[in-house]
Structures are given as C-alpha cells and as structure tokens.
C-alpha cells in the first residue's frame, strides 16, 4: 500500500515538473536512456548539469561586474549554459538563456543583468525541485525507476 502511494506520488511530482514548464521533452529522452545497465543515468546527468551550471553562473557573475561589459564573453558563457540546459530539458532556464543572449546581441547591459537575476532564480528553483524528485525516487527503492508509462 505504502509503495503504491509513493509510486503515485513520484508520478504526480514528475508530471508537475512538465506541467509547470520546468522540463520539456528532452528530459523524457534522458529517461528513456535509463535501464538496468545504467539505472541512475538521469540523476547522473542532473549532477553534471549542476556542476557545469554552477561554474558558468560564477563566470557570468564575475563578467557582469566588469566595466565595460564584454558582451562577446557573456554571450559565450551563456551559449554554453544554454547548451547544457537544452540537453537536460531545462525549459525555463533555457528561455532565460535565450533572452540573455538577445540582450547581448543588442548590447543591453541592463537587460543582461535583469535577465541574469531571473535566470539564477529559475535555475535555483529547478535544482531544488529536481533534487527533491530524485530523493523521492531513491527512497522508493531500486524498482521505482521513473519512466513514462508506455
């Protein structure tokens, strides 16, 4: 009974991540690569994503403190962050990356700073939600590999 409840809870939590626009179809592609030979693939990718993003966000933070702003450098960092976000299916973060790059293109420093704040918020939220989700999955036990119902 308890196991059914936690399985249902996991499914509901997972669905909400899509419904609320945090994740897109790419995340499902990652889930489909998870199997017995690779049982923690999605969480491993998420861990790589946190590491990569953390590094890039730090770089962006520092670059945004310089004066004048080096839009080329900023765009380069954001291109990388957008790439990672796209590969994991981080929909909202990806959208902020796109917006930021647009401001880089037009040389709008204020827009960049504003969007960066929003991006950090979205990223922080996504990370917390994903960490909570994977914790639920782990607690439910090894047979509870979350997959899209076929």
């Amino acid at each position, binding site marked *: 009974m308890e196991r059914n409840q936690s399985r249902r809870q996991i499914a509901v939590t997972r669905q909400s991540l899509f419904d609320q626009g945090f994740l897109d179809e790419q995340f499902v*592609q990652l889930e489909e690569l998870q199997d017995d030979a690779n049982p923690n693939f999605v969480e491993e990718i998420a861990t790589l994503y946190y590491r990569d993003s953390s590094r890039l966000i730090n770089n962006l933070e520092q670059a945004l403190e310089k004066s004048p702003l080096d839009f080329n450098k900023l765009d380069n960092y954001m291109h990388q962050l957008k790439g990672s976000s796209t*590969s994991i299916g981080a929909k909202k973060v990806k959208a902020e990356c796109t917006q930021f790059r647009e401001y880089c293109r037009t040389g709008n420093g204020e827009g960049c700073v504003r969007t960066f704040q929003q991006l950090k918020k979205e990223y922080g939220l996504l990370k917390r939600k994903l960490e909570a989700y994977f914790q639920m999955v782990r607690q439910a036990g090894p047979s509870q590999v979350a997959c899209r119902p076929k």
Partner: protein
Amino acid sequence: MEDIGARILAGDHQVQYGQNQRTKIKALVVDDNMINQALHRTLLRNLGIENHVVGNGREAVDVHCSGRRFDLILMDLDMPVMNGIEATKKLRAMGIQSTIAGVSSRSVDENIQEFWEAGLDDYQQKPLNFPKLVSILQKVNHSV
C-alpha cells in the same frame, strides 16, 4: 535485412549495431560539453557502438594522427582550441573518409553552410536523441 531503425523507434533498445557484423561500428564523439558527452556516449553504447570521446577539434585531429580510425564522427561546432569547422576541414585534408555528422545547437544558416562545406556528411540540431542518431547511422558506410 532487418529494419534496425524501425525497431529502435519502436522502443527496442537492445538492438546492437555491432552484432551482425564482423567488427563493431566505432564512433568518435567530439564535444566540449560534459553533458553532451555523457548523452552521446550513452546513446551510442545503447546501440552497441564502441565509442571514444574527445573535448575539442584539436584532440579529434590528434587521435587520428595517432592512427585511430572511426566509422562515425559526431562533431560539435563550438569548441575551444579548435572548432568543428576547422577540425572537419583538417580531417578531410588528411584523407579521412569517415562519416562526419555535425551536431550543433546553432541554427544560423551561415554557420551551418560553412560547416557543411568543411566536409560534413550529415547535420543534426542538438540535442541528439535516438531517432536523430538512427538517421545519422543510415549514412554510415561500415568499411573502416
């Protein structure tokens, strides 16, 4: 000839590209992003394709200079040290005839045109997934 592509799209992840052939297909992943490296490796491994990963175009050229050959090269565009366009040009100039598939997030036409002209056999927009990889594999001539 069994339709491997159809089986993969139907969700059969046990298809092994290496099984019915004398030697396994070998692929080289060229990408500076760790997530894409992990993703592409897993996609290839799940299809039974032996794979090697390098982090930029320079390393891709170096691995060929050391004598290694691959049936398929998945080449990213934006990389430090040497980008995908330069690396593709160099490999073709070296006489490398492997299938080179450009895999990039870019959709600006100008850069893709330049990428194609460098010597690509195929191009897929990131992120890569099973259907896109199957599409690329159909271009691979396993003669290496």
